[in-house]
């Protein structure tokens, strides 16, 4: 499915990188093999196999209901919390079997953060939003907490906007600021992978642009998997793209590869139809 000999086009490798290596490495960070997800007896995702590369941005595209959210939720085991959800297959992640029932899922979710479609800061102060997950993972020292909070707020470009009102409610922030706070809240745990489920779709175009730029800056330092319905956004930011589609009402991975060729010269006619806007 992948064409490793294809060179990454320059526009996708440089970007606005401020930290970390400028390009992602073609090293698999998550190796997914035959991943299937079912809710009760309804199969919604059938035998998906693909590698998510270290430090790269991988975009998941496809129509609603084809299992993209289910796919993401399997990657940080949020599916464990859905009654009746069954996940099968293998996922290798940093030398461990991610689907192993013995795995410490709380520690896993610290390594693999998730951003939701609708910004969901807790109804706490901005500071408490960032402090709470850290404290829950055993970081207690005042000084460390403050440093980490400042660092992540700077990382998401929120520091100058909120430094004077850290103790004010997070829910008073604008939608775009809330989403950046949620990204900061995920980053504060120092994850290596970030899963983003349509992170811009609830935002206005300007806020969406800001968040998109932020995601670009995460490239290299974090492995990002992003679901987006905005195909031009996927083209702008992703190194790799995966196209999901429903066949007989079961979600399948149709095509996976470097972003640009997937959009410009897709192998599968379904992909071609989707990216050229003929269907879906």
């Amino acid at each position, binding site marked *: 499915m992948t064409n490793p000999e294809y060179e990454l086009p320059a526009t996708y490798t440089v970007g606005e990188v401020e930290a970390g290596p400028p390009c992602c490495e073609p090293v698999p960070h998550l190796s997914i093999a035959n991943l299937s997800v079912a809710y009760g007896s309804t199969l919604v995702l059938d035998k998906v196999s693909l590698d998510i590369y270290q430090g790269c941005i991988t975009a998941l595209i496809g129509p609603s209901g084809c299992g993209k959210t289910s796919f993401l939720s399997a990657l*940080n085991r*949020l599916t464990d*919390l859905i*009654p009746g959800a069954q996940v099968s297959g293998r996922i290798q992640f940093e030398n461990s079997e991610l689907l192993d029932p013995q795995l410490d*899922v*709380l*520690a*896993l*979710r*610290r390594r693999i*953060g*998730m951003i*939701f479609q*609708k910004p*969901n*800061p*807790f*109804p*706490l*102060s901005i500071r*408490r939003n960032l402090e*709470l*997950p850290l404290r*829950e*993972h055993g970081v207690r020292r005042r000084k460390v907490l403050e440093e980490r909070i400042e660092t992540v707020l700077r990382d998401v470009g929120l520091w100058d906007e909120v430094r004077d009102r850290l103790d*004010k*409610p*997070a*829910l*008073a922030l604008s939608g775009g600021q809330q989403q950046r706070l*949620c990204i900061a*809240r*995920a980053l504060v*745990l120092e994850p290596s992978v970030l899963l983003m489920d349509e992170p811009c779709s609830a935002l206005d175009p300007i806020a969406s642009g800001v968040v998109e730029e932020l995601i670009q800056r995460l490239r290299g330092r974090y492995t990002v998997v992003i679901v987006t319905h905005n195909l031009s956004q996927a083209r702008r930011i992703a190194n790799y793209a995966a196209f999901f589609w429903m066949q007989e009402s079961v979600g399948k991975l149709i095509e996976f590869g470097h972003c640009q060729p997937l959009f410009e010269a897709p192998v599968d006619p379904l992909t071609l139809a989707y990216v050229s806007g003929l269907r879906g």
Partner: protein
Amino acid sequence: MADRAFTLAIWGAAALVASAFLWLLGDLVWHGMAHLSWSFLVSAPVSAGREGGIAPILVSTLLILAVALAAAIPLGLGAAVWLAEYTRRGDALGQGVRLSLDVLAGVPSIVFGLFGNAFFSVFLGLGFSILSGGLTLACMILPIFIRTSEAGISAVNDAWRHGAHALGMTRAAALWHILLPSAAPAIAAGLMLGIGRATAETAALIFTSGYVDRMPESLSDSGRALAVHIYELSMNVTGGDSAAYASALVLIVLIVAINAGALTLSDRWLARRITLS
């Protein structure tokens, strides 16, 4: 024209209700104040309550209430959390428990009194005591407290649950730091409904905490609650009317004070743990 008549009717109904209430309150204050004094609050009743005061009764009332709350709050919160977070929607066991609670919430208090007498006083051997009375009241306020709190917890935005889980927080942490504080107003409301009912309760207490009007020395002593005292004075004691009025006034003030206290506490707690915009 029809609209004006309608508006008038609405205002009329509101005025009627308000004036009935004000009349009741006015009557109570008017008659109650005459007999009310500091010494009424701090002295023991004399000649079946016609003379003297209500000090031991006030103490018994507060003790019964304290026992009831100490039992009902942890149990009730636990049950509410279980119903809201640990049973699936449509789950048979959960539905069964909900239904039973709703039925129990409508059961007349005299039934609780008889149950309390049979179970706490006789079966557990607690006799006529503040403990029996308090525990009986706890049973009585639990159904409504649990259901209100459960509704409050269930109503908390699911996005926060998902967010907390995605950050690797434990269920307990999500509950303690986010869900319970967000549900605090509903929990406080449930508690106040319960306290209001418990403080004004007579039937459930006559057979459990009894009506000994001496100062209780421990929780295993019998103690007369204010509402029982009022009932006793107005029904069985000739010439006890003015003392009954004064006691009723104290009861009202007590309920208002406890409710205000519960509200302030929940607001404080909320403000400390959570900042809703």
